[in-house]
């Protein structure tokens, strides 16, 4: 479904991605792990064409999209939903209009249908009753959830989540993880999620990769992760192990 081949990316003299190879299969939940500043967000932006690689190719459904023009990308992106790390809500619209925005742009839904859909999306992320607030009036976590709701509003086939649960309380985190799992169960949705939270990673993952210093140092199922002897994986797992002991 999505394939990155030998992706290199630098900003000035700073090499962020050094030859990334990965293949995301249709319908799977793919988790990207890695320390802060290792280039996870940059990698995600390559998948959806917001950044172009210095070297390497990007394939979507077997087609080489690396050199697609903006117009060509617009067509592909209708099938994608993405939530940004800092939510990226439109600050001149209230929460309702933000979530309704992609629906209004891309469908001919009636106002009733829009209301219903937006209400549903806000409900599952626990934001009912906040429709009329402006983004500036929301907390960081609320903003993130509203961004999440907007990304799923159009029922996209592929979802890219950049740290959807960072900064949320454990109950809310669990709820978002459930939403992601439900989405995948109901429809044949492919999810790519960046997270620091090992508990949610294990909750939703079919496969995980670990990014370190611009390279993928590990790929495998959650079971493989548990068995792995890599020091970097072990230190990431420590957080989870501590939590299991306290349970």
């Amino acid at each position, binding site marked *: 479904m999505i394939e990155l081949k030998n992706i290199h990316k630098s900003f000035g003299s700073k090499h962020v991605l050094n030859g990334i190879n990965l293949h995301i299969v249709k319908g799977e939940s793919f988790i990207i792990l890695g320390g802060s500043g290792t280039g996870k967000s940059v990698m995600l*932006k390559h998948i*959806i*064409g*917001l950044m172009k690689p210095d070297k390497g190719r990007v394939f979507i459904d077997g087609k080489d999209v690396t050199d697609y023009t*903006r117009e060509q*990308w*617009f*067509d592909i*992106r*209708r099938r*994608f*939903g*993405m939530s*940004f*790390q*800092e939510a*990226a*809500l*439109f*600050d001149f619209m209230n929460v309702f209009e933000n979530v309704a*925005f*992609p629906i209004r*742009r*891309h469908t001919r839904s009636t106002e009733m249908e829009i209301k219903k859909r937006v209400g549903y999306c806000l409900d599952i992320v626990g934001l009912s009753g906040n429709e009329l607030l402006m983004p500036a009036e929301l907390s960081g976590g609320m903003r993130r959830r509203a961004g999440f709701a907007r990304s799923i509003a159009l029922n996209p086939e592929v979802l890219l989540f950049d740290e959807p649960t960072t900064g949320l309380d454990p109950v809310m985190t669990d709820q978002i993880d459930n939403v992601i799992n439900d989405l995948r169960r109901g429809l044949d949705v492919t999810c790519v999620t960046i997270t620091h939270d090992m508990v949610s990673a294990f909750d939703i993952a079919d496969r995980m990769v670990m990014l370190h210093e611009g390279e993928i140092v590990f790929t495998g199922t959650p079971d493989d992760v548990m068995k792995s002897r890599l020091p970097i994986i072990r230190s990431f797992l420590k957080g989870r192990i501590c939590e299991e002991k306290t349970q």
Partner: protein
Amino acid sequence: MNFLDRLGKWVLNAVAEAGDFAILCWTALRSIFKRPFDIRNLFKQLERIGVDSMPVVLLTALFTGMVIALQTYSGFKRFQAQSMVGALVGVSLTRELAPVLAGLMVSGRIASAIAAEIGTMRVTEQVDALEVMGVDPVQYLFVPRILSGTIMMPLLVGIADVIGIYGGFFLLVNVFGENPDMYLNKVYQYTDVHDVTSGLIKAAVFGFIIAMVGCFKGLRTEGGAEGVGNATTSAVVMASLLILVLDFFLSKLMF
């Protein structure tokens, strides 16, 4: 050598930027005709650009009209030609001063506001979010703004022409006690329709430039809040310079 290096780099940057600007102008112009056309957004921008700029433009026009009348009156009086003041105020305002001064004032007011707004959207990834949703930022953000600029500036300048001429009238009649009919007669007699329309055409071009430069600088913003600040100031500088340069060429063209 070092100095020449820097100069060379500066020139190259400027040329590259001019090229990018031209390409973006072309893209934006083509996007005007793309569906869906966002009429609600257009009205919002029309209102904003019109309302925000009205007070500064009118004050500028009023005082410009008065000062031309004042200066030329003292000069013309020396050879008994004070009756010609109306002609001079009318021609210079409509052809040149109203569009250019309004353009400069609106640059400060609107080019900066647009650059700040779109720049903030850029650094907070709202522009990326638009792209991801398959919405062309050029179409969605630029088109309503450049259309509003192009429509509103001639309107503002039209009003500015009238206010400026009456500013001169007020000064001559109420301060210097000249004959009120004489002034207005000379204005009508010497100001051609062509003077007014050429001024309004300039205004439309300036309005386009102001909005376009704001959008351009906003879209190129990098580096957080500081970047937004830089985009804002450089938008005003670039818009003002372009207005002065284009004013010359347009004047030459419509002489």
